[in-house]
């Protein structure tokens, strides 16, 4: 796949003292759905605004489809953008909103009408053409915003937390719809969100931002299965953290001492040498309760502190493994919770491939 967007050596500061984006290099391929994910203030929105042309990078350059865009004003970039809270023009009807980008491009009237109709049909809003945006539901407004950003056939569409204002059910439905449209049109999408499940379900690749730096950029599955550092492991999904010191390195694995005399085997991700401090990360759903012999590589004893019933799954908090409760997540199958009673001693275990030795992260 060819690269459509390249950001090279981008830095951005607003006050000349603090860098909001630090030395960013990013390539987006043609037709890709890339999500910028991160907590608020991590710089992801600033990157989007620089792509759109509303902010100018302090250093570095932006190239889109081979054209230098760094100093080009937004209206000359030809990038579609979907805003938080939709930003539909309240003084225009739905059809007029859709026609706006075509009108400023001076399209002939007949073609304009034709395209607006097609666009309305695409988002299934044909009967609402003459309504004002304020007369539509949140989901419908979102679809208009989407259609408006796509109607002038941009090669790149930017989306700034477009689903943030919708409730959970509608959000999931819209995620599906955006994916459908992306697949059908083959347009390149750069999508900003702070919702990790949205990022995981929709993206071809996810770039996790923190503190103005991309922590990791990879497909969603890899992000969850193989987080590159403690921040990513903590930000994407749940994980249990155990502090320890590397004692020995064996190929791709390492032995980590988590308590005097207690050593576990883990996959080496963020450690390089023995005697290095490390954080072990174990996903709660990868932990087995009372494992059979040979089923797991590591077995440890713990005491059940509390059990929470969640319907489709059960969560248990265990004491005795590190300073914070160790979370175990079990599918609610028959008898799964039988051994889990507050105060009971249980043995737990995990495969060493599910235990990642990451960089030490200050708690």
């Amino acid at each position: 796949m060819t690269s459509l967007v390249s950001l090279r050596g981008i830095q951005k500061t607003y006050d000349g003292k603090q860098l909001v984006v630090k030395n960013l290099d990013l390539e987006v391929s043609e037709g890709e759905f890339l999500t910028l994910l991160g907590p608020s203030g991590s710089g992801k929105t600033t990157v989007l605004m620089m792509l759109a042309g509303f902010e100018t990078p302090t250093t570095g350059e932006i190239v889109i489809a081979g054209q230098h865009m760094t100093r080009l004003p937004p209206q000359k970039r030809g990038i579609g953008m979907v805003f938080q809270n939709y930003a539909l023009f309240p003084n225009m009807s739905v059809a007029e909103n859709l026609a706006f980008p075509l009108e400023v491009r001076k399209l002939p009237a007949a073609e304009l009408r034709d395209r607006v109709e097609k666009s309305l049909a695409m988002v299934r809003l044909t009967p609402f053409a003459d309504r004002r945006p304020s007369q539509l539901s949140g989901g419908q407004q979102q679809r208009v915003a989407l259609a408006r950003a796509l109607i002038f056939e941009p090669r790149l569409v930017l989306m700034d937390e477009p689903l943030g204002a919708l409730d959970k059910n509608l959000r999931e439905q819209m995620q599906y719809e955006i994916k459908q449209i992306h697949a059908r049109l083959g347009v390149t999408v750069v999508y900003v969100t702070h919702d990790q499940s949205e990022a995981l379900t929709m993206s071809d690749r996810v770039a996790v931002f923190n503190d103005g730096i991309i922590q990791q950029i990879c497909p969603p599955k890899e992000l969850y299965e193989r987080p590159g550092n403690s921040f990513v492991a903590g930000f994407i999904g749940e994980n249990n953290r155990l502090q320890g010191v590397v004692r020995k390195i064996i190929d791709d694995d390492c032995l980590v001492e988590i308590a005097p005399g207690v050593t576990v085997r883990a996959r080496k991700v963020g450690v390089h040498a023995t005697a290095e401090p490390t954080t072990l990360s174990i996903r709660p759903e990868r932990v087995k309760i009372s494992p059979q012999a040979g089923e797991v590589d590591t077995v440890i004893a713990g005491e059940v502190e509390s059990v929470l019933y969640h319907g489709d799954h059960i969560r248990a908090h265990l004491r005795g493994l590190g300073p914070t409760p160790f979370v175990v997540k079990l599918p609610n199958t028959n008898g799964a919770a039988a051994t889990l009673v507050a105060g009971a001693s249980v043995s737990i275990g995990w495969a060493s491939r599910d235990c990642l030795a990451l960089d030490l992260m200050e708690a």
Partner: protein
Amino acid sequence: MSAPLSAAQMAGASPVAMPADIERAARRVERRQTFSAAMLVLPLIVLIAFAFLIPVGLLLFKSIDNPVVAEGLPETLIALQSWSPADGLPSDAAYLGLKRDIEKAKANGSLGVIGARLNQDTPGARSLLQATGRKLDAVTDADPRQAFITIDKRWGEPEIFGAIRNAGDRYTFNYYLNALDLTRNTAGDIIAKPEGQRLHINLFIRTVWVSALTAFVCFLLAYPIAYLLAHLPARRANLLMIVVLLPFWTSILVRITSWIALLQKQGVVNDALASLGVIGEAGRLALIYNMTGTIIVGTHILLPFFVLPLYSVMKTVNPNLVRAATSLGASPFTAFRRVYFPLTVPGIFAGSSLVFILCTGYFITPALVGGQNGQLISNIIAYHMQQSLNWGLAAALSTLLLVMIGIVYFLYTRLVRDQR
């Protein structure tokens, strides 16, 4: 506890079968809330009723109320009922009636008031009545008409009787006719006033023109200010807001006086222009004591009334809308013209109608800086209230002004509704 519900229990749970006493209780609670809400606004309602609605109502009534002649010269009016000025002089009965009316008016001291009322339509009628009152003994039943004409030859002209009859209605629209530069001839037909006496219509037109111009100048000045206020960072916006509101904290007289110091022939502006050689000594600009002065000072005083509503509307415009427009390919100017400006139009309507309405009622400013051609309708109303004491005309002019403002307000609400 987990026993299945019986049919009766399920029916009881449905909202349709609400017991009557619950409904009553709900209504009682609602009544109590309505009552306490009413008590909170009661003082304001009382104040508005006594200090505003009733006085305004009385004033409006004054514009048609016309009791003086009807009550002061009743017998004359009865005798004049079937008379018309085309018939020539009225019958002896009218003269005798007039004699008895004047005697009675002299006795109860109302002759001056009647004279003053007639004087409004017929200059000189007051002294005519007074003089006639002094010589009334000369009038006998034998030939009252000749006796009256001997006292003053004006009694030999039908016009004076026409004037009495025109002024004799208990309720009259003559004040409105006067306010609209119309009058009745002696025959009672509505005609335009003589050219030299038509001044109200022109004043109304001038009031509308000056107010519209002031509102427009305010718009030109207020739009950028409001835009800055709405888009500057909070700290600088607050500072600017103080500057905008500063005039509110100063007495209006102080502000007008300083404008006089600035704008008069020997004032700061003219001195500066003359010393720079832009204008010669002979060509000093007349910036005050004319319509220009009224507009300059009015604009300054009313500007905050335009800025504030416009600012509050601009504050509500989502800044992402303009960004959206440019990202969709619109130039900054197109984005402003197609998106931002239309969304601020309600603020422009609010500001301009506020300034316009306040300006039509403005009195002090034109009185102090308006000179001759900067006077507005409110100055004439004040004149008739305070100097000529023709309250009927003042009331009629005020009513017309109120109607005019009502029309402007109506158009404003229509325009705003069409916007939505």
